[in-house]
């Protein structure tokens, strides 16, 4: 008998159906990945299992955990099962822990809720569990508070809390999405170990197919509240049947065809740039200097697509802001087409108008109160004589059509568009003053896999039509590999390796690059060489 058997589960919220006839099962010792794009209902399914559906939700069907129908249990009975028979960890480690309670107390609480034992015994067991997840008490005493830990460490605490009583079932909802690549690999390895060690069943929810392929025994694919396909991982990846699954896998493996870069002419030159932050410690503390960018030098050629990878805290955001003229540097120079970005503590408008940027968050990149035409013409502020009247209308129409939208969209508000369309509008905004350089700052990271493929294709297309040079910043190595000619790897404020993309990815020289590439989960068959059109 399977450990968890979800049988014809349907859920509606305020009479609005969100899950349709979901059936899946997880066996003890098995890792089942529940995957799909945003809105597919995978998180909702996991909340239904735990009995944590939001107010106004109605569920029908059966959820059998070892024979007990969870949907037929009262809230009191469910409380008895949560934490003891089934545990859950969530996506966002930074907000998942109680900020005013020590980590020791939080882990011990799981034990104290379900067992009659003394507080000190519970704390001892908590210490043992924290050590098991990689937080030994000599380095991480039980009296630590969550804000003293990093994201990866907090996620480990969450894991310790969830498995403290060795539940039979563990549900992990996007547990590594918010973490760095190397931390992600560690947490995934830890999960695999614990499953093998404790004999738990793991229901892993993730949109990242590479993660799925590296860890899951079986895959369940969901779309818009339906299960469309399930099967053993290797078999399913090799031969998907359902059109949606095929589309999903193809999009994840999508390689973009970039045109060949033109002969090199320097466009952006960054020389020995240093950016220090002064960390003020209040009235009586001493000011400390944090070096965010440490003597970085590189050249971006005209028409080149340069990638920048690094984990959080490496300094890539700071470097980007310095290049764009938003923050002054404490040392070194940045020039675009020979002209310096900064002159006498002021950023040069004439230089800044040759650079634009596309941001990560399609939902936060636009003022919700402005219409599209006003939104995409914001860069006109950098021009000495911005176009007016028909010239302006023409510029708007051209920008919108070049990204695959229509001129009629100019009169709409941003909330009328989907995430992928908003990123297209963001690209239109970046293109409208025909800058020499565009910076893409994690521009596709927040998009669903299918939409991401479309936007990357759009980029390749724009490269063919315009002389487009860009700096592509991302933590997602597979995206960088397909969309750039050269790549730089940044760590601790320094560029530790740079070179042609394929060369760096297939034969990394620096230890950190090697660690990064080794840690990044990969979909099988992603190692064929890039073909230039």
């Amino acid at each position, binding site marked *: 008998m399977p450990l968890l058997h979800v049988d014809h589960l349907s859920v509606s919220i305020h009479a609005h159906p969100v899950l349709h006839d979901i059936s899946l099962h997880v066996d003890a010792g098995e890792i089942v990945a529940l995957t799909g794009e945003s809105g597919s209902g995978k998180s909702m399914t996991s909340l239904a299992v735990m009995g944590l559906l939001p*107010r106004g939700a109605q569920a029908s069907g059966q959820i059998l955990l070892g024979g007990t129908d969870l949907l037929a249990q009262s809230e009191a009975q469910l409380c008895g099962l949560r934490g003891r028979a089934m545990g859950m960890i969530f996506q966002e480690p930074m907000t998942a822990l109680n900020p005013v309670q020590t980590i020791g107390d939080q882990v011990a609480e799981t034990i104290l809720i379900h067992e009659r034992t003394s507080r000190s015994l519970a704390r001892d067991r908590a210490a043992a569990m924290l050590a098991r997840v990689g937080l030994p008490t000599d380095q991480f005493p039980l009296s630590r508070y969550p804000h003293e830990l990093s994201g990866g460490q907090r996620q480990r605490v969450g894991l310790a809390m969830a498995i403290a009583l060795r539940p039979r079932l563990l549900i992990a909802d996007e547990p590594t999405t918010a973490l760095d690549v190397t931390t992600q690999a560690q947490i995934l390895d830890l999960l695999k170990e614990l499953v093998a060690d404790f004999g738990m069943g793991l229901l892993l929810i993730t949109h990242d197919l590479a993660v799925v392929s590296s860890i899951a025994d079986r895959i369940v694919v969901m779309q818009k509240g339906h299960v469309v396909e399930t099967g053993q991982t290797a078999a399913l990846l090799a031969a998907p049947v359902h059109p949606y699954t095929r589309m999903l896998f193809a999009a994840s493996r999508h390689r973009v065809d970039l045109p060949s870069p033109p002969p090199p002419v320097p466009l952006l030159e960054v020389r020995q740039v240093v950016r220090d932050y002064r960390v003020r410690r209040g009235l009586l503390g001493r000011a400390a200097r944090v070096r965010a960018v440490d003597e970085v030098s590189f050249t971006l050629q005209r028409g080149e697509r340069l990638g920048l990878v690094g984990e959080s805290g490496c300094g890539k955001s700071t470097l980007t802001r310095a290049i*764009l003229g*938003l923050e002054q540097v404490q040392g070194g120079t940045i020039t675009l087409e020979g002209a310096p970005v900064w002159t006498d503590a002021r*950023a040069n*408008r004439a230089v*800044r*108008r040759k*650079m*634009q*940027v596309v*941001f*990560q*968050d399609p939902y*936060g*990149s*636009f*003022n*919700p*109160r402005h219409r599209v035409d006003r939104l995409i013409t*914001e*860069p*006109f*502020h*950098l021009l000495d004589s911005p176009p007016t009247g028909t010239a302006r209308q023409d510029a708007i129409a051209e920008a919108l059509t070049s990204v695959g939208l229509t001129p009629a969209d100019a009169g709409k508000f941003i909330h009328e568009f989907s995430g992928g369309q908003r990123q297209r509008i963001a690209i239109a*905004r970046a293109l409208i003053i025909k800058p020499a350089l565009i910076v893409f700052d994690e521009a596709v990271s927040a998009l669903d896999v299918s939409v991401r493929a479309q936007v990357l294709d759009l980029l390749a297309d724009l490269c063919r039509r315009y002389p487009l040079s860009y700096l592509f910043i991302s933590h997602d190595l597979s995206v960088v590999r397909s969309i750039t000619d050269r790549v730089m790897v940044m760590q601790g404020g320094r560029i530790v390796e740079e070179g042609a993309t394929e060369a760096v990815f297939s034969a990394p020289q620096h230890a950190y690059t090697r660690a990064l590439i080794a840690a990044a989960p990969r979909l099988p068959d992603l190692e064929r060489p890039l073909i230039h059109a």
Partner: protein
Amino acid sequence: MTRRWPNRSLMIGAALALIFIAGGFLSLIWTPYAIDGVDIPNKMLLPTAAHWLGTDHLGRDILSMIMVGAQTSIAVAVLAVGIGMGVGIPLGLTAAARAGGWLDEFIMRGNDLVFAFPSLVIAILITAVFGPGAVNAIIAIGIFNIPVFARLTRGAALSLWQRDFILAARVSGKSGLRISVEHILPNITSLMIVQGTIQFSLGILAEAGLSYVGLGAQPPIPSWGRMLAESQTLVSLAPQLALIPGLAIVLTVLGLNLMGDGLRDMLDPRIRAER
């Protein structure tokens, strides 16, 4: 943007508040009786057909006095909110635009300092030096409103400054001032409207308190607070003299608060229906 419009809270509140506001405006051109007329033979009458709310200890018609008193309450409260917003919002925007810098620190410390002076204390200071009057009440309540709006604006603006669309505006070369006006301000107007309604109602309460102790509008200008002060010695003989002005205050403030709640539910898309 706007949800169920208009909602029940807003309607009831607006109706209540409007009764008194309308009364106040009407009294500018007409009241049932003149309020400066003393009519001792008719003093302390309970409500009758001739005097809908009765008369006070000097024979004056209470309904007329309530109407004219509304003028004082509304004028003081509105001007005080005006001062609070007019000074507080720009201060808050500036502090957020220069967050972390010395100007931000300076403005925040200034805010904290003003918070240490309740409007009564400011009114005491001003009155001691310049003599009593409605203007003092306006200034005293207005000054205390400044840090309320400054702090609220700064908080809201700070979270907006983190958003990418502000960064996009900076990349387009726009200055902090321009961004504050073009991008931040329009996105905080609903918050300001709601808070303005609340501060308006608080202003009416504050004005009543100040005129009760004699620091607000002086005779012959009537005010609800002073009506209460005058009724105090007679409260056992004629409780209606204390009840009626008090109820006027309660109903106006209640109406404004309901309006504020209703506006907040309508204008803030993040408020869940359950609240």
